[in-house]
């Protein structure tokens, strides 16, 4: 138990939003396959540290499916010199492009899933504030996240009510009742927003949000491993090597 808690607090430190620019990986040139290997190892290390179940990770990564499909089509529709793979004539440039898209998108999606899994939402908002995101925008995001379940739940109930009254649309022009649901939902969400606003004013809200970001960002060894600095370093070395600035 104590050990688990210690682990939790050590992971919490590197959960700093400072490693968000993990998207730096998107700057590594596709020919530097080894660089992606290092990126993948770092993401894998992070996945192990935050103990995300493989099934959860896989399910949440499904959002990239359409782009993977697009990438798979590239070697077939790409232009330029062609090469023979397993008896199929494929575009060389298309193959590289497909590899680049799949590798970068997969790493990016995996990193985002890990971020969302390991960092409490409130801390993500604090991190946004520390990154100098306008405070009112962070406040809007906070209200949105807090009321998302309320609004989605209400929408779900409206939907069940509509379907239980026998609505079963099959074609676009039969969507009027569904649209009425959406319209009613907008009115309800808007009016709820107005009530929240009035309640805030009644409790003395003066029109400016307090700063909620803590002053000490914290440090940690683990955090350094998956920090943007290490990822940028890998990307920079990869760029240098492929540009023949450094002899490997």
């Amino acid at each position, binding site marked *: 138990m104590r050990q688990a808690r210690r682990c939790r607090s050590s992971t919490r430190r590197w959960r700093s939003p400072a490693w968000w620019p993990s998207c730096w*990986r998107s700057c590594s040139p596709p020919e530097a396959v080894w660089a992606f290997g290092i990126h993948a190892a770092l993401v894998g290390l992070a996945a192990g540290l935050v103990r995300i179940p493989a099934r959860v990770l896989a399910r949440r990564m499904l959002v990239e499916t359409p782009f993977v499909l697009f990438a798979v089509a590239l070697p077939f529709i790409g232009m330029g010199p062609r090469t023979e793979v397993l008896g199929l004539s494929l575009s060389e440039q298309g193959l590289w492009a497909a590899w680049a898209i799949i590798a970068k998108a997969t790493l990016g999606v995996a990193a985002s899933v890990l971020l969302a899994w390991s960092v409490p939402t409130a801390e993500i908002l604090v991190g946004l504030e520390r990154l100098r995101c306008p405070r009112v925008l962070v406040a809007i995001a906070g209200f949105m996240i807090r009321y998302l379940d309320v609004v989605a739940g209400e*929408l779900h109930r409206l939907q069940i009510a509509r379907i239980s009254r026998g609505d079963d649309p099959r074609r676009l022009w039969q969507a009027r009742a569904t649209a009425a649901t959406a319209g009613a939902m907008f009115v309800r969400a808007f009016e709820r927003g107005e009530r929240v606003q009035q309640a805030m004013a009644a409790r003395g809200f003066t029109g400016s949000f307090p700063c909620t970001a803590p002053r000490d960002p914290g440090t940690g060894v683990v955090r350094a491993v998956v920090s943007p600095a290490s990822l940028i370093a890998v990307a920079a070395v990869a760029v240098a090597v492929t540009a023949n600035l450094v002899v490997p």
Partner: protein
Amino acid sequence: MHIPDGFIDGPTSLAAGVVAVGGVAVALRKAADDDLESRAAMTGLVAAFVFAVQMLNFPVAGGTSGHLMGGLFAAVLVGPWLGSLAITVVLVVQCLLFADGGISALGLNIVNMAFVPTFVAYGIFLLARKAAPATRVGLLSATAAAALASVVLAALAFVAEFALGGTTTVSLSTLSAAMIGVHVLIGIGEAVITTLTVGAVLATRPDLVYGAGQLELNEIPVLT
């Protein structure tokens, strides 16, 4: 569909990020005139609504279904400034909490899905509303035209970004033809859904429809 990391190259993503930051700054300044800070709760609820309504599936045909993208819808209901901020917040939250859209591609996604519908397509809406008669039908026709335009223009913005920073060698004419063809169909769906939904709001709370502007409220039949 949200662009993931690495689909468009670094410089183009960075440029789109700069445009996104600038656009958000302008929208914040414009919205501040309307006392944005005290309306943050309402804007957050509108963002939550947009997020939730994207989970509501509308029938299309043959068992397939689509959902509202909602950029133009938000602009018509709460105005382009609050609307663009709400959609931007939706995209940021989808990116950070749901891994939907890459962090480095956030600027691209904000430009395509927040700015193009709420600024460019809303401009088309204003022009169409001026050209159409100042009635409920005129307003809804302008909404339909702008909703269709919002989807096609977003697709064109994507093609332009792909042309600038695409990581592959697909011929641009093939890509743009395919993108426009598909998105005209999606746009028709978006137009029908947006129009029906704006009509539903117009029937219950016409005062909430920002885009109705100077439209006389007593011209709108109140359904009971």
